[in-house]
Every structure is written in C-alpha cells, then in structure tokens.
C-alpha cells in the first residue's frame, strides 16, 4: 500500500506538469493544482505511516533511469521533511489559484510548479546517488523556471535567475563530487551500500566528502558566504514560488547536511560540528543584520531565511558536538530543537511570503518605503503577516518561541563541560542567538509597522485591495498553523523526536507529557505554552473589561475614533512625514556601519553660470550585500578577465581547432598508457 503512495506522488506530479503545459489557459492552473494536491496527499499518507509505525517504505526499480535505476526509501527523518514540504505546498498551491491571474498562468509556470513540488517531495525518498542527483537537479531547474517568470519585464529577475542558476549548479557540482567520492569508495551507489562501507574510509576522504557536502547543501540552505543567490532569487520569484523556495526548498539543504553528516558518514570528529556551528553563527548574525537594514519586503524575508537557517545550523552543530563529547541527552534536545526550528520556519516563512505576495499584487511594489496603512485595506493579509512576524521574532504564544526555548535549554544544559572547544562554541552560539533574536525583532517590527500600519506612503498603498479568497485562505491556513503549533507543539513533537532519533543516532526519552507541558528529559526545564497563552488571554480580557468599565460611569466622555494625529500643531501633516523603513533602520545601520558598509553616492551639480549656485543634489545609498560586493564581484571580474585573455585561443581557424583536438588526443593516449 505504501508503495502505491510513492508511485502516486510521482505519477500525479508528472501528470500535473503535463496538463499544466498542455491545457488551455482557463483550466491549466486548476488541473495542475488539483493533481499537485493528490501528490501532496499521497506524500503525507506515506510519511504519516512511516512515522507512526517503525518501518520504512522502500521501492526500487531499474526502469526509469538507465544504468543506475531508481531507489526510493523513506525513513523517519525523510518523513518529517516530506510532511513539512507537503503542508507548505498545499497552502502555496491553493494560493496559486488566486495568484495565477497575475502572470503565473503561463504554460511554463503551470508545468514548472507541479514539477517543483513533486521533486521536492521526492528528494527525501531518494536512496541512491543517481536518484538523488536527478531529483535535485529537477528541483533546481523547475524553481529556476519559476524565478524567470517575470524576466521579460524586469532586469532584476533575469539577473537573479543568472545568479541562482550558477550558484545552484556550483552547489550541485559539490554535492555530486561528494556523493561520487562516497560511492566510488563504497562500490555501489545506493545509500545503504554507502552507509555500510563509509566507516572504512580514511579520515581525509570523509573530511573532504563532508566539507564538499556542507558547501553544496549549505549553499542551498542559504548559509553565509554561499547565500548571495538567496535574497535575489527569493525576492524576484512570484509569491507562491518564493513561499515554496523559502519554506520548503531550503529545508532540503539542511536535510542533505544531516543525510551526509549523520546517516551516510555516521558522524565524525569534533571539527565537523564546529564548522557547522561556525557557518550557523555567521549566517544567523549576517542574515538578521541585513534583514534589519533592508527596505525591500521580500529581500527582508529572504535574509530572515538565511538567519533562521543559521539558527538551525547552530542547533545541528551543537547536537553533533554534544554527541561527540558524550552528552546524549543534550545532543538529543539540540537535534529536536533543530528540527522543530526547521518545521516552524517553514510554516511561518510560508505565511509571510504568501502575505508579501498579496501585498505585491495589491500595490505593485515591494518597497516598504512606499507602503503603509495596509492593515485597514487588507485586514486578512495584515493579520497573517502580523502573526508570521511575531512568530519569526520568537514571541509567545506563537510557534517560533518553542523552538528557540528548546535550543536555549539545550545549549544551557550542554555548556557545563570540560571540553574547551565545546565551551567556546556554545558560548559564541548563545551570544549569536541573542543578538539575532534582537535584530530579528527590530526587522519584523519594521516590516509590519511600516508596511501595514500607519498611513499609506504612496497612492498605490492607499488604494490597495484585499487579495482573492484563495490567496487569503492559503496564507491564513499557514498563519493558523503558526498559532496552533505555538499553543500545542506536542502535535509535532513526537514526530520530530522520532526523526531526531533516526538522524542523530541518539535515543532520547520523549519531552512531551500530555498536551499541556513540555518537560526536558533528564533535566530541569519545563514549558507550558498553552498555559502561558491562556494566562495571557485571561489577562488581556481582564484589562479590556477594566478599560471598558471606566466608561460606564455617569459623566463619562465618549471616545473619539477619528482624530487628527498630533503633529506639534503644524498646519500640514502628510503621510510622507512618517518614518520610512530606511529611517527606522538607520540607528541600527549606524551601529553596524563597519560590517554593512553601505555605498553612498553624493552627486552635486552646479549651475552653468556660476559654481556658487547648486542646481541639483542627488544622494544615493544602497545596502547591497557586502560579501557579494567584496568577494563575488571581484571573483567574477577575475573570471571575466581570464576569459578575455583566453580569447586568443579562439581565432576562428579550423586548422587550429583540429590541431587542439589532435594534441588533446595524444595527451590522453599517453596518460592512459
């Protein structure tokens, strides 16, 4: 029965892609969405059955891929990822139904979207090198097509797609090298073969494989410094596609790291985990900083993805460190925290990107400096963004808080140890966690407050309309899930614990006791999220009742609901006098000026008649990514320089090209012999 599910995923997805490409415009999106839903449903059924029992689903065939065949195995870790991806995909495709009329109903988009979802659903199933790489590449290509949706009209979309294409393939090359190295030494290309032979590999080979895999998968997850494609691609992709990319695709980067580090290689020396933690710390701080200083709504959300993936990497690294120094309880807690952070991130980031897509459609802009007042014009989208923002900021009673709490507890209880490297890494990790927490709060107060509250800063913002019903439903579903998971994290914790056990090779007693509170196994730490939320709710009700009761008195003055805002009595108060996103972030930017190094251009033009009179002053400042500016662009410039030097090789003469071929053949023959 389970195998049927797996086959259904593939077939439904393929059929959805075909119909999406073949049907006429009126029905292609609906057909693609319906079949994608079938695919997601089958995936969830398969994953639930794996998580609730103890056996894995396994399916292999020599039919589809020549030479290597296809091997699919779903274990509990993979099942968790499959469920997460399905949930985000269900909400995003529902949203797509409403979004399609804004340019996402083309044949290419309608066939790429189901392909993207299906390949993401199947990657956790992949159990051989060839299957994995084919599915990985399919996922990359499908998402590339989606990023290119708007390329004919916007240069930024083309540039984003270029960066994305190059970096995802560079990452895929690293992954390819790593997996091929593994399978070459193992003698077979299924993951089962690799696992059995991996322990016989030398330390150098294991180290190389690990680093390559970390680079490749880390780039997909958005780890700094390999993240530069992420803000571009996630910002330029259309609404549902960016929700899927940030909410589902980056998870697979983490999945790959866990796969190679824990499952295939079976764990490793301490320096692996320190390296992961280092990537995590840098990504978290860098992402949070750029999110706090960005005034483009979707770019802010994309940098926040880098930030959250950094937190997950910190948790993963901590888990490995604790396991390596012999503290299995805290290792288990840290691994559970990592997976919970991942699941929570998918849900709230999906909701945020869907809301941002609705805003982009309603106002035509992503620039926070031109938005405002949207909470009254788009109430549902506004509330969804509000809930998502409070979840990212890890505030109770929403879901982000439970993951952060678990991570803090894991680090706290793991810290007292004699191993100096662990002490230093954990201390740095806690400081990084705290700093990113604060910066994330600032970033999302900015995004919510400037984008949705106050008055509209442009005509488009003051005339925005609420999104279509399916768009609202898709976004609201994820936001509701944020609330539910925040109140009752026990809904997902058993599944996460099983996945963590299979991933981290640790056996941990369950942290959940009933539906109310979360007890750390073997340690002193308790959290009761629903009681906390209940207490808050009661307090809110009490305060509201008290406030109303003061108005029941005999001579009470009625409240005025629509009064001119107080502006020191000035005669003219416009919406443009409000703070913009740039001004909101200015104090933080000033504090971190040496890190961000924004580029500033001041252009003063004088009157022709006299240099003493100024005609125009133009001030331009931009916060482009410092790593991109300092490392990538010089590297690209260097590559271009090399390419131009090498042009003398291609002078057009056929004789010379034949001579090249002859020389190459001679060399190969000499080497082989």
């Amino acid at each position, binding site marked *: 029965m389970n195998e049927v599910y797996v086959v259904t995923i593939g077939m439904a997805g393929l059929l959805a892609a075909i119909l999406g490409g073949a049907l006429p415009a009126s029905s292609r999106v609906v057909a693609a969405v319906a079949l994608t839903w079938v695919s997601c449903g089958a995936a969830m059924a398969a994953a639930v059955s794996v998580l609730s029992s103890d056996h894995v689903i396994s399916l292999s065939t020599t039919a589809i891929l020549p030479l290597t065949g296809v091997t699919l195995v779903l274990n509990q870790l993979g099942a968790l990822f499959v469920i997460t991806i399905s949930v985000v995909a269900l909400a995003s495709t529902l949203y797509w139904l409403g979004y399609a009329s804004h340019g996402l109903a083309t044949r290419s988009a309608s066939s790429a979207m189901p392909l993207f979802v299906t390949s993401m659903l199947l990657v956790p199933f992949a159990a051989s090198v060839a299957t994995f790489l084919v599915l990985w590449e399919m996922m990359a290509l499908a998402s590339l097509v989606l990023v290119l949706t708007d390329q004919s009209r916007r240069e930024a979309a083309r540039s984003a797609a270029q960066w994305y294409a190059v970096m995802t393939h560079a990452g895929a090359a690293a992954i390819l090298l790593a997996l091929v190295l593994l399978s070459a030494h193992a003698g077979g290309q299924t993951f089962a073969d690799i696992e059995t032979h991996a322990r016989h590999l030398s330390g150098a080979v294991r180290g190389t494989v690990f680093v390559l895999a970390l680079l490749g998968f880390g780039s997909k997850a958005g780890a700094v410094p390999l993240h530069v494609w992420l803000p571009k691609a996630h910002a330029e992709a259309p609404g549902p596609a960016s929700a899927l990319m940030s909410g589902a695709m980056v998870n697979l980067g983490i999945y790959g790291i866990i796969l190679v580090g824990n499952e295939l290689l079976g764990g490793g020396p301490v320096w692996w985990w320190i390296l992961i933690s280092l990537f995590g710390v840098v990504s978290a701080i860098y992402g949070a900083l750029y999110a706090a200083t960005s005034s483009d709504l979707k770019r802010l959300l994309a940098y926040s993805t880098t930030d959250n993936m950094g937190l997950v990497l910190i948790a993963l690294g901590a888990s490995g460190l604790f396991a390596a120094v012999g503290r299995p309880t805290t290792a288990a807690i840290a691994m559970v925290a990592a997976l919970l952070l991942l699941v929570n991130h998918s849900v709230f980031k999906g909701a945020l990107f869907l809301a941002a897509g609705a805003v982009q459609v309603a106002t035509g802009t992503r620039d926070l400096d031109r938005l405002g007042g949207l909470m009254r014009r788009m109430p549902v989208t506004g509330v969804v963004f509000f809930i998502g923002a409070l979840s990212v900021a890890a505030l109770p009673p929403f879901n982000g*808080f439970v993951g952060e709490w678990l991570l803090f507890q894991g680090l706290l209880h793991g*810290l007292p140890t004699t191993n100096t490297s662990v002490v230093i890494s954990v201390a740095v990790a*806690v400081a990084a966690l*705290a700093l990113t927490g604060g910066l994330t709060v*600032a970033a999302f107060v900015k995004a919510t407050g400037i984008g949705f509250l106050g008055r509209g800063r442009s005509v488009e913002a003051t005339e925005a309309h609420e999104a279509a019903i399916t768009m609202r439903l898709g976004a609201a579903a994820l936001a509701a899930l944020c609330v539910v998971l925040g109140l009752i994290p026990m809904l997902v914790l058993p599944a996460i614990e099983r996945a963590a056990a299979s991933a981290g090779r640790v056996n941990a007693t369950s942290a959940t006791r009933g539906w109310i509170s979360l007890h750390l196994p073997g340690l002193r730490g308790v959290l009761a999220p629903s009681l*906390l939320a209940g207490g808050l709710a009661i307090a809110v009700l009490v305060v509201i009742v008290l406030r109303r009761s003061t108005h029941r008195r005999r001579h009470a003055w009625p409240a005025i609901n629509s*009064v001119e805002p107080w502006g020191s009595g000035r005669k003219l108060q416009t919406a443009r006098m409000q703070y913009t996103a740039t001004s*909101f972030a200015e104090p933080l930017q000033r504090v971190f000026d040496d890190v961000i190094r924004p580029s500033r251009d001041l252009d003063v033009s004088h009157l022709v008649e006299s240099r003493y009179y100024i005609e125009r002053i133009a001030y331009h400042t931009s916060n482009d990514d410092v790593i991109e500016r300092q490392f990538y662009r010089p590297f690209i410039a260097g590559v271009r320089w090399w390419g131009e030097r090498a042009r003398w090789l291609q002078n057009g003469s056929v004789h010379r090209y034949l001579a090249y071929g002859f020389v190459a053949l001679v060399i190969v023959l000499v080497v082989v012999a």
Partner: protein
Amino acid sequence: MSQVLVAISQVAAVCVGGPLLLGLMRKVRSRLEGRVGAPIYQPLLDLRKLFAKQRMRPRDSSWVFGAGPVVLVATVVAVTAVSPLATTNPPLGQSSDFFAVVFVLLLGSVLLALSALDTGTAFGGMGSSRSMTIGALCEPALLVAILAMAIAARTSNLPALVRVGLNHPTVIASPARILALASFLVVILAESGRLPIDNPSTHLELTMIHEAMVLEYAGADLGLIILGESMRLVFLLGLFVNLLVPWGVADRPGALYFAVGLLALVAKVAVVGVTIAVFEVFTAKMRLFRLPELLAGGFVLALLGAVTAVVAR
C-alpha cells in the same frame, strides 16, 4: 494559601506598587533638587483621573493602536502572577521559566512599538525605531546574563533560581551571579527608559525614546501605558532584588510567610528604586549613538559572568 490568591495578591501588589514606586522616585528627585515635590501617591491620583478622561484614536490607525496598551499591561500581569516575587512557590511555578518571562515581556514591548507606528506620525516612528534599536542591543546582554545565572543553578526555572540563592547564600556572592545581575540592571534601566539611557520627564521630542511612542495616547489608553510601564519596572526590580538579596521571600506555605514576603519585596524594591533615583539625579542622559557602547559593556559583563559560571563548576 491558595494559588489563585497568591497570584491575585502579587498582581495587586505590583499594580499598586508600580505607581507608588514612580511617585517615590519622583519624590526623591524633588527632594534632591531642593523642592518638596508631589506626594508619593500622586501617580495613583493621576491614573484615577486619566481613566475617566476621553479616549482618542488617530484617523488612519487600525486595531493595533488600541491593542498596544492592553497587551503591554496584560503581559506584565501574566508574568507577575507566575513569578517568585513574594514567594518561591508561585502558581504554575514549575513552568515559570526565566526565558519565557523575558520573551513575554518582549511581546508587550513589540506591541507597544507597533502601536506607535500605527499612529501615522513621525514621533511614533522615531520612538519605535529607537526603542527597537535599544531592545535589539539589550537582548544579547539579557539572555547571556540569564544563561550565566542558569548555568550555576543548572536550570532556568525562576523559582529555582531564587531558591538556590536562599538555600546556598554563597551562590549569590559568586562572581557569575554578581556580574550577571550587574548586566541585568543595565538592561532593566535601558528597557524601562530611565537615565542615562532615556529621560522619562523630557519635553523635547527629539530627545525622547520611550515617551515619543506614547505622545498620541489619551485617557484610559495612556493610563494603561503608564500603569504597564511602572508595573514592568517594579516587576523587573522585584526579580532583580530577589535574585540578589532573596531573604524575606516566603519559602514555606502560609499566609503569614506570604505577608512577610510581600513586605520584604516592597522594602527591597523601594531601596533599589531610591538608589536608582539618586543615581539618576547625578547622571546626564547619554547621546543616543553612544548607547551601543553602554549596552556592549553590559554584554561583556554578562559574558564574563557566563564564562566564570562555566569555569567555576
């Protein structure tokens, strides 16, 4: 004593104590300036009058404007009910976690900042921006300070942290806890908007950090904000004194011990409040862009505390 009664008593004490502490600090300032000053209970009179005044809502604001003051007060009430202020056995004491308390209070600050942005004025944005910058720079110090105290006690459960101080007085004198509490005090001053970070009685809008966020509120909303802010100060100072000087906190069940605990809390918080007020009189407000240095100093203190906590075990 029944847990509900304990919760209500603690909340009531902090509710009344907040404005009284505010009045006490103003009285100390007045006396040091050579005046008589308003009586200590004056803020209570101010609040009583405010709750009878008309409420006003700016034209283009949304539901967030009214939600800000409510959530601010509600968060403080919720954490006061479950924290070890007068007794080491508050209701739901098992789940009363220091991290949870801090994040719940942060929820109140965030809602206040959002409602300031909802006013649609430049002042609200300015207050919100500065407040969030300070908050972002305070969080590292605060969370590392909590970590330092929690490592020594092997838990971040608040009643346990207070109890460990009661049962093992040497823990209080340990460098880890002293450094962590010093950092905690810096954060309390920053988050409550006291000098040298922010002048609570300034009239110059461009120098305001917290006050700028509340310029638009009138009537009961303003009353709730003033109440909430003073309650938050009392709550945080109450935690601070119970972690620094826990004697007097009720360790055993019984109404008498609880009453003694409340009185001890009042006395200790009053002493700390007066000290802060005196310190404020002799300090000038720092430049806004020098604040990161101060908060980084607080962070370094907390980090030192955490390192000593690990090393000393």
